[in-house]
């Protein structure tokens, strides 16, 4: 199953804007989605009914003046000093796959915030991914920093060299969430050719890309991270997506670049996907701060497993439709028609959980800059295996602690990983556990102690655990866990990719498509593959230490 559709031909079936979509969210969001079902666009009506703006547009307000609505009940309106705002992130979704996943992400993000923020106040958590805009103000201004939510705009830049997916998004229920000025599209597509995406479109759209990125950065008070979503096997996501990385590094050197990359599986029907992937890998090696590799096969396996649970009625309980992992449509019959929807939702959940501790409060926070700090011991080794649990919610709510421990065990099971790999039989360099919900530090510690013996950590990082506790659980669950592992188990994926590449390259198959692009030479290929080989070699060296006994090194001796 692929997240990419085959070619741009024909109108793609609409994945949203279906009247059957049940909407179980509150307040402003209900209005927003139902509006779009009517296909009428009256954006001013997205404001809550109790707005008392008067005749003038609300200005960037001072502290504690929420434009007429009451502050949170019972709490002092203002603490008398300017509360600091949090950081913001910008999502850059590139190519077909990137945009489809991105779209799922924005949908889930809105639902999550709607569920958590019931009074419709534009707060710090929402501001990390959304702007609050007064749509009555013409032009680019009209950003409202506080007060009631008027109209939310995603901090996103959408890039695709075909129009199909982006057009679909702009006609769907999320169309008002995207700022039409933040799109870059073309019509011809990249033909599954990394060189076309990277060199041709890169050159063509460099200025525009810079402009849109700068704009999105300007709208941020304090921009902390770029989330890039793309696939590796095609042309646009792979080529243009990685071209972007270099642009981001030069233009915004202080801002993190966290890349979610969908790797092609063995049965990928795009013949040139190994070329595209390897060429893209070199860019990821050099310009990404952190990469979360995903593969379609794993996502498909997860969805199949969920289907199995639902259809077999094995446990005698039902799966809550509200569970974000399976929802936007929620009904299982839909899933058979559009499996990629559910698969993309998993990746969207990954991104939501990754940022939850930065957006919401908790007893042990973990900001985005801590991910790289703790999980990347050497600059090159920044590929993290992710696993997410739970994947579905059972209808019973009172889950005793034993189930909580099961959640931790699941996170280390291959069935919950978003990439095919075997961390348990390889070497951990570092591991992060990001917990959401009503979980305490003792639960976390108990489970680490329990699971530690079955995992192998590198000698110099025997206690290489980074943990975070966020109080706000995801919608539909009491708690959840995201595990990010820097583990040598990614090596086989890369080795296999290299093998597939070599099979093609040895025969020079399809090479002319690339070489005919200006600036492309065979050296591009050989450099890319040696970059990958160097990476594999680093993993090899670490693996070699696996069976060695852990000894303490001799310490400095001091004369007392």
């Amino acid at each position, binding site marked *: 199953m692929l997240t990419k559709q085959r070619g741009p031909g024909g109108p793609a079936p609409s994945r949203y804007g279906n009247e059957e979509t049940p909407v179980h969210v509150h307040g402003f969001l209900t209005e927003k989605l139902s509006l779009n079902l009517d296909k009428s666009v009256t954006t001013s009506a997205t404001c809550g009914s109790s707005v008392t703006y008067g005749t003038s547009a609300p200005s960037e307000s001072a502290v504690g003046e929420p434009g007429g609505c009451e502050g949170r009940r019972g709490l002092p309106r203002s603490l008398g000093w300017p509360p600091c705002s949090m950081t913001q992130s910008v999502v850059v979704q590139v190519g077909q796959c990137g945009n489809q996943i991105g779209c799922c992400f924005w949908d889930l993000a809105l639902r999550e915030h709607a569920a958590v923020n019931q009074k419709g106040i534009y707060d710090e958590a929402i501001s990390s991914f959304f702007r609050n805009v007064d749509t009555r103000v013409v032009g680019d201004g009209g950003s409202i920093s506080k007060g009631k939510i008027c109209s939310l705009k995603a901090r996103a830049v959408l890039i695709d060299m075909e129009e199909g997916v982006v057009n679909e998004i702009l006609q769907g229920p999320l169309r008002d969430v995207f700022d039409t000025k933040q799109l870059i599209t073309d019509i011809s597509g990249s033909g599954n050719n990394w060189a076309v995406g990277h060199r041709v479109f890169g050159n063509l759209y460099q200025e525009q890309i810079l402009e849109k990125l700068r704009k999105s950065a300007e709208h941020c008070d304090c921009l902390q991270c770029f989330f890039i979503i793309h696939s590796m096997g095609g042309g646009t996501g792979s080529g243009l997506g990685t071209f972007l990385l270099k642009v981001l590094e030069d233009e915004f050197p202080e801002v993190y670049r966290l890349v979610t990359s969908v790797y092609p599986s063995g049965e990928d029907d795009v013949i040139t996907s190994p070329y595209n992937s390897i060429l893209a890998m070199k860019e990821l090696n050099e310009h990404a701060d952190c990469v979360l590799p995903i593969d379609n096969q794993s996502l498909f396996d997860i969805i199949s497993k969920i289907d199995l649970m639902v259809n077999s009625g094995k446990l005698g309980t039902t799966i809550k439709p509200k569970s974000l992992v399976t929802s936007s449509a929620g009904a299982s019959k839909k899933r058979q028609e559009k499996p990629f929807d559910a698969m993309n939702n998993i990746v969207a959940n990954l991104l939501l959980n990754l940022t939850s501790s930065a957006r919401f409060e908790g007893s042990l926070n973990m900001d985005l*800059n*801590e991910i790289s*700090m*703790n999980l990347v011991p050497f600059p090159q080794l920044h590929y993290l295996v992710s696993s997410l649990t739970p994947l579905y919610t059972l209808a019973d709510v009172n889950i005793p602690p034993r189930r909580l421990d099961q959640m931790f065990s699941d996170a280390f099971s291959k069935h919950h990983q978003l990439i095919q790999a075997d961390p348990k039989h390889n070497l951990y360099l570092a591991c992060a556990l990001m917990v959401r919900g009503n979980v305490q*530090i003792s639960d976390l510690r108990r489970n680490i102690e329990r699971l530690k013996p079955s995992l192998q950590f590198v*000698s110099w*990082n025997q206690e290489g*655990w980074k943990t975070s506790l966020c109080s706000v659980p995801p919608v539909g669950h009491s708690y959840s866990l995201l595990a990010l592992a820097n583990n040598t188990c990614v090596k086989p994926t890369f080795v296999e990719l290299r093998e597939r590449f070599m099979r093609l390259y040895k025969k020079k198959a399809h090479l002319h498509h690339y070489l005919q692009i200006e600036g492309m030479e065979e050296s591009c290929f050989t450099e890319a593959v040696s970059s990958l080989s160097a990476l594999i070699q680093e993993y090899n060296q670490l693996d070699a230490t696996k069976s060695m006994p852990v000894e303490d090194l001799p310490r400095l*001796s001091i004369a007392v």
Partner: protein
Amino acid sequence: MSIVTLQLGQCGNQIGFEVFDALFSDSHCPQRLCSKRENEAYQASCKERFFSEEENGVPIARAVLVDMEPKVINQTLLKAAQSGRWKYGQHSGFCQKQGSGNNWAYGYSVHGPRHEEPILNLIQKEAEKCDSLSGFFIIMSMAGGTGSGLGAFVTQNLQDQYSSSLKMNQIIWPYGTGEVIVQNYNSILTLSHLYRSSDALLVHENDAVHKICAKLMNIKHISFSDINQVLAHQLGSVFQPTYSAEGSFHYRRNPLGIDWQVRPPLSGLPTLGKTSLNKELHFNTSIANLLILRGKDVHSADLGGFKDPALYTSWLAPDNAFNVWKTQRAFSKYEKSAALVSNSQFLVKPLDVIVGKAWNMFASKAYIHQYTKFGIEEEDFLDSFTLLEQVVASYRNL
């Protein structure tokens, strides 16, 4: 005399709140076991130390809150204000938007110099509010980036600006099994820098407090809130007013009159008036001990065991090495309570473990690029290792 508390980072702010809450609660505790006059003197002394003039009758904590990201400070301020019993000053907080990313180098070399002025101004304002400043109590963790790195930077600054005031740093020793992967690096950098600028390091280990919660208090699902409350309780029992051994009529004026580096108190729980000491062969040698007794029978307690020369080094006589402070006013709800603040070999093992782990990691150069990016070089690490090995050796040779 007053103490200005500096709460740094998530840990510092979360604990700081609990400390002020514990001090306030104890101060207004109905069960006192002493005369009304005694109690009033106690309350007045406590208030002078930790709280400043009230507006609308709500005392304001003598505290400065600092964090490099806003969530925790906002919550802390709100929690205090909501309680209605005490609160933080309106302008006593300083925060930024983006945290230190668990990076000591970032906290020390970037945030420190960048925000030196506003932070020190806040501290100065708070200090000026005191009739007589005893010193500073800085609450920070070692594992993260802000408490540790910025904490080290600020303490250094206080050393320069307020050289005649005492600086005591409350350090939170992280769990052995990671909270933060680079916690050992952050810890050794913090300790080595604080050694040069702080007067006293009061240490609490998360592991030890966790055990107290589990074994002594039987809490099933221990949260950071539980841990922080136990910690606050211990600190309260040390810092609340007492009389010194000289038997003066006023409560000790200098609550920070501890001249040496100190160690975790064991207390908070009701104990018998008489403590018997087993003469085991293996016990930690102390440089000095401070015992604080509160409640019933404090004057009749037999403290002979604490003066046993076997406990102390040969170069300091027990009479000099052992001090006791007392008050009949009970602490919190305990009829009798005792706190022991100790400068002893207790810390050698945990310190040795941290230095060892950091050294192993350093040998492989893992994560070093994250520090050199912000100006902390390998030599800085080596300097830290050297200093701490000396500390370990010195304590071992007591």
